[in-house]
C-alpha cells in the first residue's frame, strides 16, 4: 500500500490485437472467474477505502468515546475545520517545501547531473558511483532512516566528527533541511536511471555537430539534449512529486517534530487521526491528499496517451 506505482509501459495496440484472440477457448464466463479474485481484493482493500474516506470525512468519527460507537454526519465541518486550521496550512506548506526542495529540485538536478557526467564512461568509477546511489534507493526505509539519525546525531554523529563541529544538531536546528537532504540522497537513483536511459536516446551525431559548431557545454545541454529528453523530464517530475508527496519516511526520521516543523501532510494525517483519534478530521485531510494525487495522476496518464 505504501507504494505509488505508475507503470508507464504504453501498450502497442496493433500487437495486442494480433495476439489477444481467445486462443485457449476461455469464454467470457471463465474469463470473468479468472478476473474475479483480483477484482474482489482490489475492490475491498483499495476502492472501498477510497470511497469510505469520503464518507468518514463527513462524519465525527473518533477512535474512542461516544462518537466511536455512534458516529454522526457533520456535513462539511471537517473540511471547514481543516481549511481554517493553521496547522493544516503549515503542514501543507511544509509538504510543498519538501516536494519542491527534495524532488522537483534536488532529485532532478542531482539525478541528471550524475547521469550527465557518467554518460559516456565505463569502468569502476561509474560502477561505484551508480552502485552507491542505487544502494541508497533500495535499502529499507527503516534502515536508512536510522543511518541518517546516526549521521546527524548531536553527540558523536559522524557528520559532527567529520566536520569537527560541537553540538551541531541538524535534526533539531534545521529539521526541514535535514529531511530534504535525506530525501535527495534517498531518491536520486530513480532520476539518475531515467535520465541515463533518456540520454542514451540523444543521437551522438547531433552533439558532435554542436561541438564542432563551437557550442559550449551549457548550450549543448539546452539546445541539443533538452529537446530530446523533454518528455522524460515531465514523466520524472510527475512521478517523483507524487511519490515524495505520499512518502511516509520523514516520520521515521523526525516523527513530525520538533514542534511540528517537519509535519508534512502524510505525517499530519497519522498524527491527527491515529495518534489524536480524530478519524473524521483525518479522513477530511486524506480526501485532500487523494484529490491532489488524482490531479497529478490524471496529468501523467494524459501525458502517456499523448505520447502514444
Amino acid at each position, binding site marked *: *500500500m*505504501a*507504494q*505509488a*506505482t505508475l*507503470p*508507464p*509501459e504504453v*501498450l*502497442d495496440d496493433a500487437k495486442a490485437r494480433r*495476439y489477444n*484472440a*481467445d486462443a*485457449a477457448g*476461455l*469464454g467470457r464466463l*471463465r*474469463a470473468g472467474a479468472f478476473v474475479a*479474485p*483480483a477484482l474482489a*481484493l*482490489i475492490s475491498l*482493500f*483499495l*476502492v472501498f477505502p*477510497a470511497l469510505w*474516506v469520503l464518507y*468518514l470525512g463527513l462524519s465525527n468519527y473518533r477512535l474512542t468515546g461516544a462518537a466511536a460507537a455512534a458516529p454522526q454526519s457533520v456535513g462539511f465541518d471537517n473540511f471547514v475545520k481543516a481549511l481554517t486550521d493553521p496547522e493544516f496550512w503549515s503542514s501543507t506548506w511544509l509538504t510543498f517545501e519538501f516536494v519542491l526542495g527534495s524532488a522537483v529540485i534536488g532529485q532532478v538536478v542531482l539525478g541528471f547531473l*550524475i547521469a550527465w557526467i557518467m554518460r559516456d564512461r565505463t569502468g569502476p568509477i561509474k560502477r561505484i*558511483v551508480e552502485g*552507491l546511489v542505487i544502494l*541508497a534507493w533500495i*535499502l*529499507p*526505509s*527503516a534502515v*536508512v532512516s*536510522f*543511518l541518517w*539519525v546516526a*549521521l546527524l*546525531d548531536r553527540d*558523536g*554523529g*559522524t557528520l559532527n*566528527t567529520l566536520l569537527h563541529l560541537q553540538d551541531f544538531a541538524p535534526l533539531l536546528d534545521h529539521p526541514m533541511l535535514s529531511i530534504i537532504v535525506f530525501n535527495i540522497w534517498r531518491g536520486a537513483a530513480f532520476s539518475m*536511471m531515467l535520465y541515463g*536511459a533518456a540520454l542514451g536516446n540523444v543521437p551522438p551525431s547531433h552533439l558532435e555537430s554542436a561541438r564542432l559548431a563551437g557550442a559550449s557545454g551549457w548550450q549543448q545541454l539546452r539546445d541539443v539534449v533538452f529537446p530530446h529528453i523533454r518528455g522524460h523530464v515531465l514523466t520524472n517530475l510527475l512521478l517523483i512529486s507524487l*511519490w515524495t508527496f*505520499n*512518502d511516509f519516511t520523514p516520520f521515521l526520521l523526525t516523527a513530525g517534530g520538533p514542534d511540528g516543523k517537519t509535519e508534512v501532510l*502524510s505525517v499530519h*494525517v*497519522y498524527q491527527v487521526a*491515529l495518534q489524536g483519534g480524530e478519524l473524521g478530521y*483525518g479522513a477530511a485531510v*486524506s480526501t485532500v*491528499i487523494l484529490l491532489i494525487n488524482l490531479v497529478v*495522476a490524471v496529468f*501523467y496518464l494524459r501525458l502517456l496517451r499523448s505520447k502514444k
Partner: protein
Amino acid sequence: MTRFVLRRIGFYVLIAVLLAFFAVPLLWLASAPFTSDPTYQVRMPDFTSENFRALFDNPYALGSLWNSVLLAAGTAALVVVFATLAAYALSRVRLPGRDALLYTLLLLSSIITGTAAMVPLFQLAVELQLIDSQLGLILILTGGLLPAAIFMMKDFMDSTPKSYEESARVFGATPLQIVRHVVVPLVRPGLATIAVWAVANVWGNFLMPYLLLSDVEKQPAAVIMYTLYTEGGQANIQLLGTFGLLYSVPVVLMYLFVSKKYGFRFHGGIKR
C-alpha cells in the same frame, strides 16, 4: 592545456563529493556490526562477533525477520497467482469495459497510496477484526499491489504468441490446463519480475504493518528496526547495526540477482 587539466580536476572533485555524499551515511552500516561497543560514530571495526551474539539472544529480532519473510512471500504468492489469472483473461478475452477497467485500475493504484488510505484501512481492519492478523495484512497489501501487477503482467501476456495455446486446444486441453502448462512457462520471466517486485515492496513497507500489527511477536523487521531506535528513549545501538545489516542484505542480493539475470530492464515507474 591548462583548461583541460582544470576540467579533469573539476571532474574528479565532483566525483569525490558525490561519492562522499552517498557513501558517508552508509559507512555506519558497514562498520558498526563488527565494532565492539558501537556508538553513533563510525569507527574502524575490530571484527567482533559479540554484536551478532546479542542479536541471536534478542527474543524479537530473528522472529521479526521471519515475519517479514512470511508477509513478503505470502503477498508475492497471492499477487502472482491473482495477477496472472486476471491478466491472462484480460489479455485474451474482450470482456465488456475492459479498457476502462484497466485505465481505472492504473489510476486508482497510483492515487490511493498508504498515506491517503491509512485512515479508512485502519478502520476497515478494526471492523473486520484484521488488527494483529498477518493474513489480513497480506490481503490488504495484495489489494494495493494487484492493479500495477495486473498491468505489468498483461504486457507480458500480450506479447506471447497464441499459437501454442491453439495447438494445446486442438489436443483437447482444458483452459485451466492451458494456462498451467502452456501460458505459465511462456511468461515465467514476467512471473519472476512481479514476484521480486512484490517482495521488495513488502519487505521495505513500514506504514501498513506499523498501523495494523501491534503485537510485537507478529511485527516484521521494518517495525522492529524503528522500535529499536525510538523506544525507551535510548537507541539500542548494539542491535541496530547487526539487525539493520541482516535486514538489508536480502534486498541487495535480490537487486544483484535481478540485474544479473535480466540485465537492467528499466521499468519506468516501478519502485518500492
